[in-house]
């Protein structure tokens, strides 16, 4: 049994859209980018619901779920910043969900991270 590496895939050729990409990932990256608008809309909708006081912990968990999906895929596709930001959002929300904080106060803490993630997603879509 060979000893395993634990480092993620970090081919520098994948940094940014101008890098030459392995064909395996090119199509997947294109699909990921095409799905960005619907993910942004989903996160913004959930944030709005929570801010309007109609939202619940379930909405926060939904944001964490979207962040989880982004984190797992983005880094594999050579978008480490989106991977890191979404991983942070997911971790912060899940840690807060185990406490008794209200969704609104959790959002107040995690808000800046969510904004940074949304900005990174927009940048990736527009590039």
């Amino acid at each position: 049994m060979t000893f395993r590496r634990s480092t993620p895939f970090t081919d520098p050729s994948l940094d940014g859209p101008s890098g030459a990409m392995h064909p395996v990932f090119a199509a997947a990256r294109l699909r990921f980018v095409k799905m960005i608008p619907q993910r942004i809309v989903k996160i913004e909708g959930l944030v709005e619901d929570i801010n309007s006081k109609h939202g619940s912990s379930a909405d926060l968990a939904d944001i964490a779920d979207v962040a989880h999906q982004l984190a797992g895929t983005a880094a594999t596709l050579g978008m480490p910043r989106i991977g890191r930001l979404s991983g942070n959002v997911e971790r912060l929300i899940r840690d807060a969900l185990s406490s008794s904080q209200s969704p609104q106060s959790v959002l107040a803490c995690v808000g800046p991270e969510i904004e940074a993630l949304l900005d990174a997603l927009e940048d990736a879509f527009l590039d």
Partner: protein
Amino acid sequence: MRFICVDDDPVFLDIINANLKGQGFDKIDCVGSAQEVLDLVENGIRPVDCFLVDIQMPDKDGIQLCRELRDIPRYGQTPIVMVTKMSEKGYVDQAFTAGATDYVTKPLDELEFRSRINMVKRLHDERNLTAQFRKQQSLFGNIAMKVEYDSPALIPEIDNAVEYFALENYLLTLGKRRLRGSSAMGINLSNAQVFHSACDAEEFFDVLADVGHSIFECLKIHQFLISYAGSGNFVIFRPNSTEIDTESLESQINGVLNKFQMTFAIDDLPVPQVIVGPSVGCSIFSIGPPTKMLERSISMVQPTGRTTRIAGRLAA
């Protein structure tokens, strides 16, 4: 080989699909939920050779899916590889206890994924060859089928039992740092060769199951995983290293087995007897992979090790 891949992220399914195709596999079904997997296996005519399973999914998660697949007799030993972002020890523990064969974390390292799939393919090919050989043997009728003496096997009907290959993968997934404080203990069936010579494959597995169950009964107050590594060797992995009196445990297990003396005597077989080795820990400073602790625990109950233990007792 036929694969079923399940992940609620369609983009990740594209990545896995493309990776597998790049490795030359073309029978790949990609679905978005655990229920779709269960529907496919229930209605499918062609058997599945490997499942690639995400953990975090809505409704039913990948760990529950793994449990339910293992409950289907046809898929009791089919490789199930978890492909997930969840790297925390709790998830790894749950996955392997539920019956996972291997665990790959996202983001996906292409070379590592390729090497894991190659290992799964080797396992699949070996099992296929064995199954074909047995089928050919059975065509000649009345020829007792034998199992390879040094082959690992899954002990049936024990919740804590895992395949040796999966136990190795579990240790490799966790790594030495997270294995700190855990321990492995070898338990050798000292008259395994006698049973292997005298019994056909089914009878030999029955003996292994009896021994496995006896070990389980004597250890059930502890948290542990049990695996059969081949050559009469069982390995007990514990997430801690609380002291166990090995001599007392050895007496207990042999005591349980001795109760079945009459049953074995009817088949003209001796009572299985075990030797319990000392607990072996995993140091982050030790050379070699984390699986070395399994190998060390087994080596401590081999004939040379036994002589050392007996000499030690006499010296005491």
